[in-house]
C-alpha cells in the first residue's frame, strides 16, 4: 500500500541483523506467493500469525452497519490472507517486547510506525507487547524491517508458538525481589525464538518471570511456564535458581499453574524449558484447539507424570552452549542511573502530590524511584512516544519498560529530578495520576478491533475511567487500590479473572433483542502473582456496569471489617448476598433503548432484530426461562463450591449444563425427557453435528464441555475438577444464549 515499501527495503539492506533480515525476506516472498495463489491460505495464515500479523474485525468482508449487514468491497476482491480473512482488510500487528524493555530509539521507531502505517496510536497490551491497528498486509514487511533495524522482532508474536516472555517491570529495582530476573527472561526469549523444538505446538506457550512470590508484577500463576526467583545456599555459596510452575493459563476456564520444582538452578532453566517444549510439542493436543494448551496436557497427565516425562526428556537433550553462555553476564547484569541520587522535594501542587503518591515507587537503590506513566486504555500517540523517548534520554540511561497493566515505567529516576520530570511529562499529557488504582482500568481491544469481541471492553473502560475519576476515591485507600479488568469475551485477554472487579463480555437475548452484557467476576486476586481466580456472579447489561461498580464499592465501604481486603469481603458476604445486591440491574429498564447498543457505539447491537421494538410488554420465550434457570443452577454450584461442598458443586454444575442443553433441544422437541443420555444425544444431533451450536471462532469447544461432563458424570469431583466444571458450565450457558441469539427468532414453546 505504501509507495515507499521498495525504497525501505533497499535503504535498510545490509543494516539489519542477518537473521531478522532473512526472516522478513521470507515473509515478503510468502506474501508474493499468496498473492499469486501459490501458497495455501491456511499455511499463509499461520505463517503471518507467527509474525504477529493478525486479522481484525470485519476482515471477512462483512460489517453490521446498524441497519443491515453490508458487504465491504475490498479492492482485491476475493483474495484472502487466511480462511475468511480478506487481503485488504485492516489488520493488527503485534510487536514483541521481551520483558517489556525498550530504549529511546525503539520508542521513536514505534512512533514512526504508528503514524505511517497505523492510525497514530500505539497500544500496550496486557503481556507487555505493542499492537498497531488497521495495518495493511502489504506494509507489514517494511514495518518489520524498520523494527529489525532497531533490534525488535515480531516473530512468534502470535500463532502456535512461544509468545512474548514477560517479566516484572520493577526487576532490578524492587526491594522485595530475590534477584533481578531481567537477564534470565531475555536469555530465555532469545533461546526459544525460532527454536526447532518450539515449532510443533498445538497452541501458544507463554512464559513469565517474577522476582518475588508476593507481588502481582510477573503473574506467573497464569502462565504456561512461570519462574519465580529464589536462592539457596550450597556449600556456603548462595546459588541462584527459580521456583518453576507450569500449566497456568486464563482463557475461557482459568487454570492455576502447578509447581514443577521449587528450585531449578539458573543453568537449568533453558534446557528444562526446552524439555517442556518437546513434551508439549509431542504429546499436546493438536486437532482440538480448545484442549491444546499445555494446561490441559498437564491436567490429563497429572503434574507428577508430566514432571517425570520432562525430566526424562531433559536427559536426552544434546548439550547446547547457549544454556549457560549467558550466565556470567546475567550475574553481573546491572542497570545504572544517568543522574546522581537525591532527595525528593515534598512540596508542589496538589496534582503533583497526587501523581507522586500513585505513580512513583521507591527503588531499593536509595535516592531513586520508578515512575509509572498511566496510559488511558493502554494507548499512546506517536507524538507522546517521541516526547517520551526524549524524556527517557534526558533523565535516565534509557531504562523504560512496558507493564502488564498497559502502562510504562521509567526506572532510575533520581528523587531530586521528580518535579522536573513531572513537568516534562505533564507538558505532553503523560502525567496522569492514579497509576495502578481503580481508575487505571485495564481492557483488551474487545469489539473495537478484535473479531472475537462480544462486548465493548474499551468503551466500558473509557466510561468507567471517566466516572471513577469524577468520584475521586483518594480519601479511601482501600477502594482506590482496587483493580478493574475487562475482557470483551471469555478469552480473558483483559485478565478479568485476577481483578478485584472483573468483567467479560457476553450477550443475552431479552424480548427478542440481543443486548450486550458483561459477566461480573468477583474475588480474583492480583497480588501473589495472580494468586486466585474470581468466579462469575451475574450477567449484567453493559450499560448497567457502572452502577455495579458503584454498588459494590459502596457496599465495601459500608460493610467491610477493619483492614479487610475486597477479596475477603466478597468471600465473607457470599455470592447470594452479591446476587441480591445486583439483581435489579440484571434487566434493562423498560423502554430504555440505549441498552440495545454498547458503550461508544450507537449501532443497534443485534443483527437480526433491527427495527422498531418495545421493551415493555415483551414476550419471554420458554427458552429464555429455561436458560435463566440453568444460569441459576450455575450460581448454586458456585455457592456450594464456596461452602466447600465440592461434590454437590460439581453435580449442580453438570445439571445446569444439561438444563441449558435441554432448553435448546426443546425448541424442536418440546417433549424431550429428563433422561441425561437422551438430552445429550439430541443436543449432539440437533446442535453439534449441525454446528448450530458452534461459536464462530471457538467452534464446538463449549459443546465439548457438556459431552466431557456427561462422560465423567459418574466419577467423584475433586476441588479442581469441580471448579473447572463451574466455569465450563457458565461458558456453556453463555454459548447457549449466543446460539439462541443466532437462531434469530423468538421461540415460544
Amino acid at each position, binding site marked *: 500500500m*505504501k509507495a*515507499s515499501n521498495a525504497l525501505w527495503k533497499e535503504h535498510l539492506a545490509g543494516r539489519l541483523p542477518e537473521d531478522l533480515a532473512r526472516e522478513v525476506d521470507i515473509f515478503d516472498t510468502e506474501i508474493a506467493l499468496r498473492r499469486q495463489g501459490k501458497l495455501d491460505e491456511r499455511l499463509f495464515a499461520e505463517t503471518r500469525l507467527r509474525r504477529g500479523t493478525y486479522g481484525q474485525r*470485519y476482515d471477512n468482508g462483512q*460489517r453490521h452497519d*446498524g441497519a443491515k449487514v453490508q458487504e465491504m468491497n475490498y479492492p482485491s476482491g476475493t483474495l484472502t490472507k487466511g480462511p475468511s480473512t480478506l487481503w485488504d482488510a485492516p489488520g493488527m500487528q503485534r510487536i514483541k517486547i521481551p520483558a517489556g524493555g525498550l530504549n529511546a530509539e525503539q520508542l521513536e521507531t514505534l512512533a514512526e510506525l504508528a503514524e505511517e502505517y497505523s*492510525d497514530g496510536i500505539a497500544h500496550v497490551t496486557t503481556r507487555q507487547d505493542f499492537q498497531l491497528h488497521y495495518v495493511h498486509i502489504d506494509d507489514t514487511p517494511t514495518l518489520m524491517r524498520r523494527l529489525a533495524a532497531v533490534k525488535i522482532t515480531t516473530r512468534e508474536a502470535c500463532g502456535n508458538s512461544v509468545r512474548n516472555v514477560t517479566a516484572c517491570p520493577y526487576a532490578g529495582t524492587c526491594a522485595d525481589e530475590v534477584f533481578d530476573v531481567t537477564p534470565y527472561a531475555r536469555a530465555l526469549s532469545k533461546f526459544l525464538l525460532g527454536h526447532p523444538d518450539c515449532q510443533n505446538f498445538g497452541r501458544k506457550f507463554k512464559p513469565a518471570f517474577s522476582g518475588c512470590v508476593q507481588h502481582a508484577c510477573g503473574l506467573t500463576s497464569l502462565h504456561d511456564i512461570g519462574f519465580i526467583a529464589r536462592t539457596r545456599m550450597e556449600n556456603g555459596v548462595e546459588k541462584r535458581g527459580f521456583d518453576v510452575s507450569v500449566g497456568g493459563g486464563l482463557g475461557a476456564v482459568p487454570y492455576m499453574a502447578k509447581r514443577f520444582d521449587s528450585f531449578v538452578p539458573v543453568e537449568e532453566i533453558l534446557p528444562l524449558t526446552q524439555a517442556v517444549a518437546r513434551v508439549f510439542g509431542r504429546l499436546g493436543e493438536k486437532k482440538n484447539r480448545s484442549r491444546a494448551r499445555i494446561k490441559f496436557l498437564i491436567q490429563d497427565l497429572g503434574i507428577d507424570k508430566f514432571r517425570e516425562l520432562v525430566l526424562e526428556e531433559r536427559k536426552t537433550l544434546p548439550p547446547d552452549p547457549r544454556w549457560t553462555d549467558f550466565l556470567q553476564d546475567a550475574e553481573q547484569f546491572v542497570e545504572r542511573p544517568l543522574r546522581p541520587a537525591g532527595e525528593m522535594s515534598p512540596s508542589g501542587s496538589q496534582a503533583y502530590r497526587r501523581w507522586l503518591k500513585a505513580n512513583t515507587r521507591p527503588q531499593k537503590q536509595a535516592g531513586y524511584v520508578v515512575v509509572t506513566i498511566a496510559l488511558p486504555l493502554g494507548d499512546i500517540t506517536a507524538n507522546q512516544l517521541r516526547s517520551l523517548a526524549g524524556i527517557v534520554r534526558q533523565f535516565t540511561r534509557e531504562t523504560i519498560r512496558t507493564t502488564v497493566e498497559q502502562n510504562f515505567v521509567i526506572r532510575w529516576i533520581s528523587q531530586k529530578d521528580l518535579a522536573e520530570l513531572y513537568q516534562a511529562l505533564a507538558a505532553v499529557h503523560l502525567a496522569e495520576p492514579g497509576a495502578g488504582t481503580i481508575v487505571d482500568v485495564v481492557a483488551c481491544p474487545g469489539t473495537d478491533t478484535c473479531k472475537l469481541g462480544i462486548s465493548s471492553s474499551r468503551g466500558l473502560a473509557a466510561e468507567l475511567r471517566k466516572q471513577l475519576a469524577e468520584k475521586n476515591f483518594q480519601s479511601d485507600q482501600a477502594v482506590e487500590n482496587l483493580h478493574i479488568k475487562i475482557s470483551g469475551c471469555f478469552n480473558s485477554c483483559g485478565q478479568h479473572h485476577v481483578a478485584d472487579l472483573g468483567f467479560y463480555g457476553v450477550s443475552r437475548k431479552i424480548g427478542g433483542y440481543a443486548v450486550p452484557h458483561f459477566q461480573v467476576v468477583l474475588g480474583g486476586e492480583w497480588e501473589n502473582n495472580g494468586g486466585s481466580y474470581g468466579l462469575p456472579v451475574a450477567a449484567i447489561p453493559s450499560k448497567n456496569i457502572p452502577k455495579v461498580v458503584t454498588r459494590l464499592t459502596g457496599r465495601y465501604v459500608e460493610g467491610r471489617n477493619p483492614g479487610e481486603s475486597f477479596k475477603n469481603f466478597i468471600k465473607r458476604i457470599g455470592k447470594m448476598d452479591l446476587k441480591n445486591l445486583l439483581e435489579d440491574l440484571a434487566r434493562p429498564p423498560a423502554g430504555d433503548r440505549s441498552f440495545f447498543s454498547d458503550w461508544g457505539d450507537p449501532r443497534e447491537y443485534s443483527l437480526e432484530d433491527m427495527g422498531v421494538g418495545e421493551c415493555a410488554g415483551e414476550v419471554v420465550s420458554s427458552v429464555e426461562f429455561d436458560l435463566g434457570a440453568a444460569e441459576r443452577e450455575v450460581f448454586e454450584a458456585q455457592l456450594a463450591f464456596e461452602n466447600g461442598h465440592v461434590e454437590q458443586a460439581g453435580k449442580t454444575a453438570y445439571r445446569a449444563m444439561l438444563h441449558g442443553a435441554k432448553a435448546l433441544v426443546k425448541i424442536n422437541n418440546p417433549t424431550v425427557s429428563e433422561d441425561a443420555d437422551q438430552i445429550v444425544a439430541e443436543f449432539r444431533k440437533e446442535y453439534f453435528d449441525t454446528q448450530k451450536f458452534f461459536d464462530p471462532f471457538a467452534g464446538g469447544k463449549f459443546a465439548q464441555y457438556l459431552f466431557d461432563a456427561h462422560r465423567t458424570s459418574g466419577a467423584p469431583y475433586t476441588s479442581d475438577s469441580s471448579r473447572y466444571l463451574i466455569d465450563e458450565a457458565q461458558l456453556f450457558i453463555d454459548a447457549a444464549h449466543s446460539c439462541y441469539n443466532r437462531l434469530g427468532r423468538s421461540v415460544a414453546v
Partner: protein
Amino acid sequence: MDFQHVNVKLLVSDPQSVNLEPLIPVFHRWIQAQVFEELLLDIADYRHVHDGPGIVLIGHQADYSLDNTHGRLGVRYNRKAPIDGRNWDRLKQAACSALQACQRLEAEAALQGKIRFNGQDVECFINDRMLAPNQEGIRQDLDSDFKAFFDTLFHGNDYVLSYDADPRRLLRVSAKALKHFSVADLAKNLDC
C-alpha cells in the same frame, strides 16, 4: 521530488466548544451510506488520549478524522493509497477530500452547526518519512510545490507559511491566510 500519502487538515473555529461524541453516529451513517469515494470501514474512538487522533473514520484508501494532534483540532484527511500524477495533484486530491468532509460536517443536522471551520488555518503533512523526510533540504525542495498549492487554495491572497523543524516529526507545513475563507470558497478556489 515526488511525495505520496498527503494529509490535509483544516482547523475548526472555537475548538473548545466542540464535543466529539455526536460525531460517532454521524460517521456510522457515513459508513452506511458510503458517502465518499474511498471504502469506509470502521470508527476508532481516541477521545481518551490527549492531543491525539480524536475520532477516526477508518477507510481503505484514506482515513478521515476530527484530529487533535499538536492540540489543534481539525478535519484531517490521511491518504493511504498512492495517487498517480504530480505533487500538485496529490495535494489537491487530499485537500478536496478534506474540504468535502468539512462541508458535510457543517451541513450535518445532528451537529446543529456546532462544527465550523475557520477557513484560515490549513496544514499539510507528508505521511512517509522515506519519500519526504523532515529535513531542511527537503523542505526547501518542496517549498515551491506547497506555495503553488496555497496560492491557489487562498486565491492569491496573502498567507504565512511555516514548517515544523523537528526532524523526528513528519514533514508538516502550516499555512495561515490573512483573511477568512469559507469551506465552499476554498473548494471553489481549488476547483474541487
